[in-house]
């Protein structure tokens, strides 16, 4: 079992804004809509220009079991919550809008606290994912599953990776004011992070060469399909890239699994101050 955490400093301005609004009073309740979106990198693909070794990557499926959404307008306010979990395929085109995870009646206020969870959940209900994919994800006990293809010239590598990790995102950077209106908070999933070539550098690159080279690394016959077992057999000790700092990781599957804890953002590029990862 692995657990880790990441923290960021919390912006003070949002809290001050929330306090100011509460102090003024007179605002009207509204609606808070929570969406989940995989952006173009998941819906369209990651172009070769973004990958240092020239591979391009497309996702046929990018399944997430997501829920546990919470929002709060300042520390003293009641917490809104949508505790259930739903399964979405973020590779399906949404026209840039993402998919609605939950809709909540929201008292007036400036919502500066937001969180959500990626986790395996046997009671999760379908979002936009196909029934067979929902059943398979739940049966495997996965929170995230990515199925896709990497291409460079005439070379192609397929992958189908499932992760049983639970990733709790809290204190995400938001500031949305409800005053008789509907506001949307987006849980944004950055699928390209799975290709990061470093677990600790401030600005890692996207890379696929070493993943491709893992085909057959476990002694199996290379078949153009890289499995978790092959990635786990890809030792990193002598690699220039794929540094892991103090993390207890020494193989490529460990790095990719670690990056699952970095997928979750908010409203595009916003970060969550507190991320807790557990599971395998």
């Amino acid at each position: 079992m692995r657990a880790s955490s990441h923290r960021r400093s919390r912006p003070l301005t949002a809290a001050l804004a929330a306090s100011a609004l509460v102090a003024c009073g007179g605002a009207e309740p509204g609606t808070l809509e929570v969406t989940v979106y995989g952006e173009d990198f998941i819906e369209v693909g990651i172009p070769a220009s973004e990958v240092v070794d020239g591979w391009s990557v497309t996702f046929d499926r990018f399944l997430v079991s997501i829920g546990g959404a919470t929002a709060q307008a300042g520390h003293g306010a009641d917490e809104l919550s949508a505790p259930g979990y739903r399964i979405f395929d973020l590779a399906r085109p949404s026209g840039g809008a993402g998919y609605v995870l939950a809709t909540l009646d929201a008292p007036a206020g400036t919502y500066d606290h937001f969180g959500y969870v990626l986790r395996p959940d046997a009671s999760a209900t379908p979002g936009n994912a196909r029934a067979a994919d929902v059943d398979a994800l739940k049966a495997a006990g996965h929170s995230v599953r990515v199925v896709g293809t990497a291409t460079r010239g005439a070379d192609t590598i397929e992958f189908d990776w499932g992760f049983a990790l639970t990733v709790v995102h809290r204190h995400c950077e938001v500031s949305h004011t409800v005053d008789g209106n509907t506001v949307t908070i987006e849980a944004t999933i950055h699928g390209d992070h799975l290709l990061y070539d470093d677990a600790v550098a401030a600005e890692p690159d996207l890379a696929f060469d070493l993943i491709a080279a893992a085909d057959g690394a476990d002694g199996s016959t290379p078949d153009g399909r890289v499995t978790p077992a092959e990635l786990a057999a890809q030792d990193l000790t002598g690699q220039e890239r794929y540094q892991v700092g103090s993390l207890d990781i020494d193989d490529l599957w460990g790095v990719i699994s670690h990056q699952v804890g970095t997928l979750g953002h908010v409203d595009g590029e916003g970060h969550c101050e507190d991320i807790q990862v557990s599971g395998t």
Partner: protein
Amino acid sequence: MRPSATTAAALAAALAACGQSTEAPTVMLPVASAGGPLAVATTDLGYEVTTTRLRVAIADLELTIAGEQHAVAAGFYHPGHHAGGDVAGAMPGNVLVDWDGGDGRALGVATLIVGAYQGANFRFRAADGGDGLATDDPLLGHTFHVTGVARKDGADHPFDALLDLAAGTTLVGAVFELVVTEASTETLHLAARPVDPTAGGTIYDGLDFAALATTPAGLVEIRPGSTAHNVFRRPIQTHDHYVLHP
């Protein structure tokens, strides 16, 4: 490095804002490199390695107290590994730490909110002109410079290693266990530990010195771009090998 009143004020304000206190007492403690010889390391490949000098360029030392307690896997943490701790002390700025077997050297002054500390973090960087190095110092442009002798089967293998780390690489969770009070005055010593006392690993694990190319003078030079460099820089950047102590 001079103490930063701004840092003290910011830390005090941060704690007060969290509702723990209307006033957050702080103290300023000197920080120095630990003196004395570095421990001899017996590696996984059977080398007995004496480190004669280890220099590293770092920045922005942070001291952490236990933050919110989260459900984490039992056994994940051991002393100093509270990666989720709250930063309650700091010594911002660049420092060059030189462990050469002699006396420790002053590195600066840290500002700490009183509390029970459980870890330290810092950022690795490349040494530069601001570190006061001679223009021909081999460490310039690199993060680590390590020299020593590895012995095995009666043969000595002197070595000289320059290591690079990617910009922004941060060490999180060095051991630092100390209760800091308003009466605290002790100097905090930053020490390198070639041998991890908890797990027994060494910073030289995986290096087969006898198999590495040497200079005509018989020196093993480990430089960026080599597999030995890549092997060496993995363990030496882990929190297992650094401790901050009074």
